[in-house]
């Protein structure tokens, strides 16, 4: 399988020389036809990376080739090859969906019959054919998101960048967007997808790059990544503290046999353990001895959340 994106030592520092380094010397490839996800918490450097790959942000050093064109020296050719779906709803609210698509199609160089065909096709993909002539401002959040994606598909790009496209929408719209992305990928579209939702990355991706503080800390298929955390299970405890010291309880649990790591997140305790079934009883007893009690618990198989915890010592939602 050939690579459509090749990123080499890409680095972005804002306001050099003392400014924040948002992306730290990362390198990775995206294969033609795959869904590649960049997974990481907010502020990890996902949007800066996708902005550089969209030629919206100049890298401080390094380079990337998209569809064989350098982002630093051949921006117009890169832009013709990519479809960008930004995190925000980047549409004109006071004109209709069809008028938006016609305008954006023209910006991609479409015209005449081909423009009309592509507008009709992308309206159908977004499920908005019957609302084509309604103003965007009258749409729900989910409909706007779908139209936002449709704009990125107008010129049939070689690769589609989706920057957190499901943020702030209802579960039904989210489901529809994920299904749309799967369908597009099945039809051959390469997708670069950024998210901080582990479940989305797990469901959609052929390969995942985990990014944190601007560094690519892990890269591979889901199965490869989860193997990195060994046989660890994840115990997610919802605890009633009853005045007990949260940090002291976390430290006590860390000392329990079979517990690899404990993280406190929004009052919950996340424990990476060797085997949940053997460690669980000791954990619950330790919580009770501290004067607290467990309201609810969940045991999860090794997953990306456990991996992120394993690699960074922090929960993915931090």
């Amino acid at each position, binding site marked *: 399988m050939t690579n459509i994106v090749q990123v080499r030592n890409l680095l972005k520092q804002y306001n050099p020389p003392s400014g924040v380094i948002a992306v730290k010397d990362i390198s990775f490839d995206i294969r033609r036809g795959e869904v590649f996800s960049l997974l990481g918490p907010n502020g990890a450097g996902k949007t800066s990376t996708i902005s550089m790959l969209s030629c*919206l942000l100049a890298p401080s050093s390094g380079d990337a080739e998209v569809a064989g064109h350098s982002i630093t020296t051949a921006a117009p050719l890169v832009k013709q090859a990519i479809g*960008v779906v930004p995190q925000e709803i*980047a549409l*004109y609210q*006071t*004109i209709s969906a069809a008028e938006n698509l016609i*305008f954006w199609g023209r*910006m991609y160089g479409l*015209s005449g019959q081909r423009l009309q065909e592509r507008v009709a096709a992308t309206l159908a993909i977004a499920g908005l054919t019957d609302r084509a002539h309604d103003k965007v401002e009258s749409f729900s959040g989910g409909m706007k998101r779908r139209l936002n994606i449709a*704009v990125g598909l107008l010129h049939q790009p070689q690769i589609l960048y989706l920057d957190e496209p499901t943020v702030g929408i209802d579960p039904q719209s989210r489901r529809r967007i994920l299904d749309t992305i799967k369908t597009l990928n099945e039809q051959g579209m390469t997708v670069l997808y950024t998210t901080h939702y582990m479940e989305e990355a797990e469901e959609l991706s052929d390969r995942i790059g985990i990014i944190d503080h601007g560094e690519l800390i892990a890269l591979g298929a889901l199965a490869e990544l989860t193997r990195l955390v060994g046989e660890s299970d994840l115990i997610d405890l919802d605890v009633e503290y009853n005045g007990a010291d949260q940090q002291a309880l976390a430290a006590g649990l860390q000392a329990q046999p079979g517990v690899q790591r404990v993280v406190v997140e929004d009052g919950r305790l996340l424990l990476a353990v060797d085997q949940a079934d053997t460690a669980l009883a000791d954990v619950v007893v330790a919580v009770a001895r501290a004067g607290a009690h467990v309201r609810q618990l969940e045991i999860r198989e090794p997953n990306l959340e456990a991996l992120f915890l394993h690699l960074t010592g922090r929960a993915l939602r931090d």
Partner: protein
Amino acid sequence: MKKPWFIALNDTLMRFRDRNGLLLMLAAPLVLAAITGAAFGGLTGSGSSASPITDIPVILVNADEGAFGQQVVDAFDAAELADLVEPVAMVDLDAARRQVEEGAARAVVYIPAGFSAAVADPANGAVLEVLTDPTSSFSPLIIRSIVEQIAAQFNTAISGGQIAADQALARQDVLGPALAQLPQAISAAVSAQPGGRRIELHSRSLAAEERGGDFNALAFFAPSMAILFLMFTIFEAARSLLDEEREWTLPRLLSTPTRFDQILAGKIGGVLITGVLQLSILILVSGLIFGVHWGSSWPGLALMVLSTVLAAASLGMFITAMARDAAQAGVIGSAVALIFAILGGNFITATAYPAWLQPLSKLTINRWALDGLTDLSLRQGGFGDVALEIGVLFGMAAIFFFIAVWRLPRRFAH
């Protein structure tokens, strides 16, 4: 060239579909012009001003060789009027009129030949003429009021004499035969006094005279309000580049194979189309509804519209280029629009401003635009009358445009 055109078209389409925007662009200036035009057009000697009115230049042309004409001239030199008016004597009425037309004086008070004889002759009516500058709101009213008072003083004399005669006639029985002829004697004496007949005041606006009709205050307020609201619209349109940055459509545009200079050309084009359409519609509607005549030169009017819109658009782009964000551009734009409107004479004609304010006034787009458009609407001027204004406005446009075009790519560079 296609992409800038599509961007300009899209911007214009959105702006003219926005009902609130249309209210500001078209309805508000027409309504305000109608209200202010009606208010000022109906004034007959009252008025108010935000600033003290002093040293109103007035030209006295005394063609009379008698004593009464000189008394009118002397009245303008009275100590109590010293701060209010600055009278200058001239002998050539046509030259004096030109001074008013050129804005060097606010009015001409013309005392015709034979004025004294007419005053003394009860069979004839005496006339004083006041020729006023139609572009001035208050000064002509003040001058006319002064002349009315002078005429009233003459009339008071005759009225007082007439009353005394009437009272003597009524008390003839008491006065006795010796004084029986007194009322007739007083009446005869009064006839020989100044103002033996009531002096008539003929007041005319020079533009009304030239056009052969009444002065239409809307001919001043229609262009005035059009320029004021054009500035608001244009500044908002120019600011849309920053709005698009905030609303993420600009980054999205930049992610398409569209260069920044194409986007900039499209945005500027949208601003220009919007401005030209707005001003043209206002001119057309003010002509149809209010009967404002827009001069004798279509090329002159077209170039005035174009140069005014270009200058305002360039200033709007300049503000956009210098502002930190859309909010700051909005505040600066509103402040500039209002300050320029006041300095430029959109509310009170700038020709009434004191001398020290005149240079500041002439630094504004509003002043040149208003001077040019009122040259057309009030004085029915031709292309030659507005050539200077057109040139200055194009010059202003060039300065702001080049700074904005130099600055904007740097402003949006990442």
